[in-house]
């Protein structure tokens, strides 16, 4: 297929339509209105048509229709082809009131295949050589290595974080203890003591033996956030629920980071729109 030549009429018509569509969609920011509604319906229609078209051209045609072999080479494909068509058509019993249960067969096949695939997906994502769990086996202690020496600010931030943790555990445990009759202050002092010792140790430790803070924080985050996702009431010890609370904080930090870093990508899209409207459509350059 040779490429289409540039034709001012079609180009202009295209730009006009494109600009109209863009503005109509932007009008939603003001309020839902008749113009938006019209273009929204067109958009849904176009999307639907596109779905139908690519389902045919990308799935059904190459993977099913083109594989039918009316004559010649491979005989074993033909019954397979027909069978698939029959199973596929079972969907349409949805339209009959009596035999609607037949349409559950393709549903069952889809659900079953999804369930069965879970095993390999988990393996591939978490337990392979560069899987997420395997990658979490991090040394919490790195021997002298100037390349990986940690920066002071990270240390400061980490100490600050630990201080926050200590403070929070303090508050949390006090609140928690009210319901029980454990003698006051024991575990609070213990925990605060441990954290203070850790904080002091971080400063006093020789440079090469400093806990690799990044690794430590990664593992800490992993453990605490995992604790947040424990649901069984019976398994919630005091430690677990304390860790879960910290986990929620760490999750929130993680969410803030995701939010902030996505802003840029979203803005780029809007900037692209501004360029389209101002430069291509209005020729302001």
């Amino acid at each position, binding site marked *: 297929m040779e490429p289409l030549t540039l034709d001012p009429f*079609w180009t202009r018509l295209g730009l006009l339509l494109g600009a109209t569509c863009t503005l109509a969609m932007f009008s939603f920011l003001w309020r839902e209105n008749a113009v938006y509604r019209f273009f929204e319906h067109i958009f849904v229609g176009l999307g639907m*048509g596109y779905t139908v078209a690519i389902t045919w051209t990308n799935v059904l045609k190459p993977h099913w229709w083109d594989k039918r072999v009316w004559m010649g080479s491979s005989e074993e494909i033909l019954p397979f082809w027909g069978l698939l068509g029959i199973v596929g058509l079972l969907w349409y019993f949805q339209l009959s009131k009596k035999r609607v249960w037949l349409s559950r067969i393709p549903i069952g096949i889809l659900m079953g295949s999804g369930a069965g695939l879970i095993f390999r997906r988990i393996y591939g994502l978490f337990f392979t050589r560069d899987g997420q769990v395997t990658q979490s086996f991090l040394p919490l202690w790195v021997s002298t290595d100037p390349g990986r020496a940690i920066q002071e600010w990270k240390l400061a931030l980490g100490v600050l974080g630990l201080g926050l943790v200590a403070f929070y555990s303090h508050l949390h445990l006090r609140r928690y203890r009210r319901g029980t009759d454990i003698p006051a202050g024991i575990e609070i002092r213990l925990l605060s003591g441990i954290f203070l010792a850790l904080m002091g140790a971080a400063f006093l430790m020789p440079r090469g033996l400093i806990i690799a803070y990044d690794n430590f924080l990664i593992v800490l985050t992993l453990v605490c956030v995992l604790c947040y996702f424990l649901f069984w009431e019976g398994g919630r010890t005091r430690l677990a629920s304390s860790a879960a609370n910290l986990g929620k904080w760490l999750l929130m930090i993680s969410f*803030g980071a995701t939010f902030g870093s996505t*802003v840029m990508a979203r803005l780029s899209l809007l900037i692209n729109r501004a360029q389209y409207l101002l430069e291509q459509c209005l020729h302001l350059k």
Partner: protein
Amino acid sequence: MRRWIITFFTFVAGLFYILEFVLPSKTSTGRALHAAKPYVGEAIMVIGAFAVGLGVIGVCRHHLRKVMLRQKGWYNSVALLASMFAMATFKIWEKYDPPELARRLHDLLFLDMYNQLTVTVFSLLAFYVASAAYRAFRVRTVEAGLMMITAIVVMLGQIPLGDRFAKFLQLPWTFTEARLWVMSVINMAGQRVILLGAYVGSLAFGIRVLLGLNKDTLLEKNP
């Protein structure tokens, strides 16, 4: 009986993938399963694809009724149906070397309308991000405060002014550095656990689906 048939199909479809995963590829069965995997995948894709027709029927019914009865906004339904058929026709036709006019119309529908609409709706997010930020990041709780501080640090790390600001404040780090650190340490670990939890949940759900133990997957309650 019907329930058994459905559970059987569900189970077999899942069992195939489980066996394919578990059996070593050196054994003959394992090899056969490996070899069959692309075909099974293809077949399942095809079966899923057939459902699109039902969707089309549903949409046509809904909107045709609107048009027939001249309900409020019927012209929108006309636009929807027309654009649907136009798009489907031209998109499929495009693969079969159509005349120039058809290709022009395809480009008009696809490049000038569909693509622009997509990008525009996508870019609405820029506005929404701003108003969501205004509403959500109020320091009422510690959680919201942490979220806000991280978001601001990360955002400052993305623009050139941020690092100047850091220099101006005489901070020991640049915001770019801080952003990368937050992203690759805490954010990474947090996302990792969400992923892990979701997949473990999927595993449990999958096992229940395969054994037909779910009360509410709606598979069993047949009239």
